[in-house]
């Protein structure tokens, strides 16, 4: 899914963050090309994010993932300039964030971007409804409007009835719902999540992931979602950016990441994943021996997920035809191809 740059919701070019006193002067010198460890040893500077460029399309869920310390939090904060970039540009909706003065930036943060934080960041002295309305209050909406809007958001995230509670009276999952509602309240163009569910236990995490998917379907916002959990990334992401030591290792759709890992780092990452749930037919089909192979057999789109296709393929004797979005015949799959993915999985487990 490559989008023309001018229509993208978010456009990032050559973004750098180096922590340390003389960070600016390092950009462009040979030192900037050193590995993170070497640079730190040599000059005490730490590379947070190194030369990152990508685009996010409107309405897309863009997931950034990587191990702890790979620079995910730094990256997402650079996007809103909660951390000042050392170099590079960020363009949001055609406006260059990195060139703005403080007042303009504040306005963008009030209207266009909101963030959901790992530790929720709720204000303990405010009730749920006032926490949700907080951003609206900041930008000066009047009281009736913001109450009404906040109430809508609370209903949207399923917290009706808890408006008058204080944050510490809610469970972790509910607190993060408040965080979500607060982020949605300002009706931003882009939502940023920094590992929003890492602090929650697995069951609640699953609920919350569903919640995000549902919200995305309902409100259709562009989302940048940080996580270190591959399952989460695969479940939510339209596209996934994998980071290591501040650098991009690979950007791609979930099946691309699983089907064609860019290197061993990514391969290690995806080793444990339930491939049948992610891989599409495109990654298991083989080219047809002739245009006529499997004529009369069922036809499946190449972006069908293997698990979904399994029933059809296994039920049919012989090969099944695979077509692309335009309907042209691109390949065939048989029981063998499907079983390889599914059984490999079981072997693994």
């Amino acid at each position: 899914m490559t989008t023309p740059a001018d229509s993208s919701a978010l456009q990032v070019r050559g973004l750098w963050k180096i922590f340390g006193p003389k960070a600016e002067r390092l950009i462009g010198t040979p030192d900037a090309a050193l590995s993170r460890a070497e640079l730190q040893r040599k000059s005490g500077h730490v590379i947070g994010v190194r030369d990152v460029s990508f685009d996010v399309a409107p309405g897309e869920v863009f997931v950034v993932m990587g191990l702890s310390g790979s620079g995910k939090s730094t990256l997402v904060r650079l996007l809103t300039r909660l951390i000042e970039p050392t170099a590079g540009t960020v363009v949001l909706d055609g406006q260059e964030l990195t060139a703005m003065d403080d007042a303009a930036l504040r306005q963008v943060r009030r209207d266009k971007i909101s963030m959901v934080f790992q530790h929720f960041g709720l204000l303990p002295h405010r009730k749920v409804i006032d926490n949700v309305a907080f951003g609206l209050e900041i930008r000066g909406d009047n009281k009736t409007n913001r109450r009404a809007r906040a109430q809508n958001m609370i209903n949207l995230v399923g917290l009706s009835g808890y408006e008058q509670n204080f944050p510490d009276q809610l469970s972790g999952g509910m607190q993060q719902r408040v965080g979500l509602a607060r982020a949605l309240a300002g009706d931003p163009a882009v939502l940023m999540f920094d590992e929003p569910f890492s602090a929650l236990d697995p069951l609640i995490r699953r609920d919350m992931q569903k919640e995000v998917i549902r919200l995305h379907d309902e409100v259709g916002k562009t989302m940048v979602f940080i996580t270190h959990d591959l399952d989460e990334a695969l479940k939510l992401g339209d596209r996934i950016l994998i980071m290591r030591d501040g650098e991009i290792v690979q950007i791609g759709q979930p099946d691309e990441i699983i089907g064609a890992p860019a290197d061993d780092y990514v391969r290690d990452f995806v080793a444990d994943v339930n491939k049948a749930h992610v891989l599409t037919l495109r990654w298991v089909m083989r080219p047809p021996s002739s245009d006529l192979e499997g004529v009369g057999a069922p036809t499946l789109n190449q972006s069908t997920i293997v698990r979904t296709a399994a029933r059809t393929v296994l039920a049919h004797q012989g090969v099944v035809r695979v077509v692309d979005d335009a309907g042209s015949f691109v390949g065939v799959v048989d029981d063998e191809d499907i079983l390889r993915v599914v059984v490999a999985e079981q072997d693994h487990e």
Partner: protein
Amino acid sequence: MTTTTSPGVTRRGRAAAAPPAIDPRPRWQPALVILLVWFVVWLFTRGHDTLVLLGRDKTSVMNALNDFRDHMLAGRDTNPLMRITGALADAFRSMVTWLQRLISIPAEPRPVPRIGWLGVTAVATWLGYALANWRIALLTLGTFVSFGLFGYWSDSMDLLIIVGVSVLICVVIGLPLGILAGTKKRANGVIEPVLDLLQTMPTFVYLLPIVLFFGIGAASAVVATMLYAVPPLIRIAAHGIRSVPATMIEVADSLGQTRWQRLRTVQLPIAKRTIIVGLNQTTMAALSMATIASFVDGPGLGKPVLAGLRINDVGTALIPGLLIVAIAIMLDRGTTAASERADVIARGGGLKPPVHRALLVGGGLAAVAALWLSTQKFWAAEFTDRGIGRRIANVADHAVDSVTSSISPFTGSIKDGITYGLLNPLQSFIAESPWWLAFLAIAALAFVLGGWKSFVPALACLAGIRFFGEWHNAMITLAMTLVATLLCMAIAVVVGVAMARSPRTDLAVRPFLDAGQTIPAFVYLVPVLALFGPSRFTGIIAALAYAAPVAIKLVADGVKGVSATTMEAARSTGASRLQQIRKVQLPMARASLVLATNQGLLFVLAMAVIAGMVGAGALGYDVVLGTTRSEEWGKGAAAGITIVLLGILLDRIARRAAEPAPKETQWLSLPRGRR
């Protein structure tokens, strides 16, 4: 001197986090050698060049100080600084007088204040109920009634007025400064050292310059009280703002907050609790200083206490002293309860059931009625003195006499033991040395114990002390301070370790320590004086009573901070209880011990001045004299400066001497230290 003791907030709090347990440098041997040489030389030269200043003798420096004062006073109408302080003094004075006419002294042409005791008591009680709870209301009622019952209505009101006005000014000045210090690193860099200075200076030393600029009376009392009470508020408010979690600041930023919005909606609300703690500390500090301000003729309950102390009449000092304690308890409990309730209300709880609301409204109406009555009826305005106070004072006198005489063999033996066994030898050693001998020896000690970094300030301080001409008195005060600090630390270690090792002991002892810290310093003198009579020893005991609670708490908390795993490891090696304490807990709590010693020193030194008037003599006596007698101002100022110099001298040596050895030595001594 600080009233705050939670290590996170005191100014040397950072030291508490210092690396633990490293062998001290082997620098005690050279120190012992110096002491030995000092002793030998002392044997042959004692009594020479001791620079004793007899009676009203003054040095030329002291006379010059007097001349300076006269010069300043003569320029009262031309010197811009004097004119500003003069105008401020007038403002404070008229504010206090107005309030006094309102509730404390006759408002001409009325023979009574505008609002009489009944009105004031009723309103105060109602406030206690409205802001806190019925228990506080009862406490307030009892306290206010006892003011009148014992015949100290006016003095009590005066004290409350001084405290109230000072705290108000503290809030107006302190809160913005605290916020500034909490949000701006650079501002903090300026404010912090000033607070350090204010808090290290013994209370009393403020008074002399303040009197010069603000004159004797209410204005000086307000200014001194304010200066003494504002640092905790600034420090704690800044601390509160600074400890707002970074994540919340980030949230605020991500929503596009301006600085002002951030302060108003995030930082202040979250820091509110801490700020209220600061306010409580400031109030208590203000009460403490407002009583001491009676030395400069500040109105209030301190006056009768002082009068009693001056003539060693414990009976007279006792009742106003107890009233001060009652006020302390009332203010402490009241502000704490009020803040807790404010919390509950802010969280939407505490909605009062109808009965309470009725009580609130009814009580309010009753208070207004009482107020009106007290402006109309003489009996409701003037508390008829039934002589209860005098009678109790007499009874107290007798009781004190009989108690003192019955336990005097006991107290006497403690007193004699410490006086002859510790104080006298030390004093004759230090103060009977020729000045140059003590000078050189102390400077040398500073060098071997703390290196250049304590040698240079020590030299400067010693030179200053010599210059201001109070050498002999300084040495006497030094001897007293050393003895008191030594005793203080001995007590602190014994009690502190006991508290740390047994939660039950902690539970039993801590309330007394808390109480000890809430009671204004001045009041300690009364019972101590009753027990031991006027002497240097009395001064030492008063200083101990004042300094020990802080030191004990610091030691207890430090020892308790030694991690459970470390202790378990120690136990697993089969260490006995004493070995555990000596080899593990005390060395690891070393930072706290250092902090406790430092704070103990400062507290002792602060008390040494006040103790000057119960027979401790020396520097304290001269300072006290300087505040009361115009022609002794210069001498008092010299003595005051000398106390400050002495404080810095001791502080520098103690702090550096206790610091861990430099890196290389650390390495060398590590294996040995860990055995």
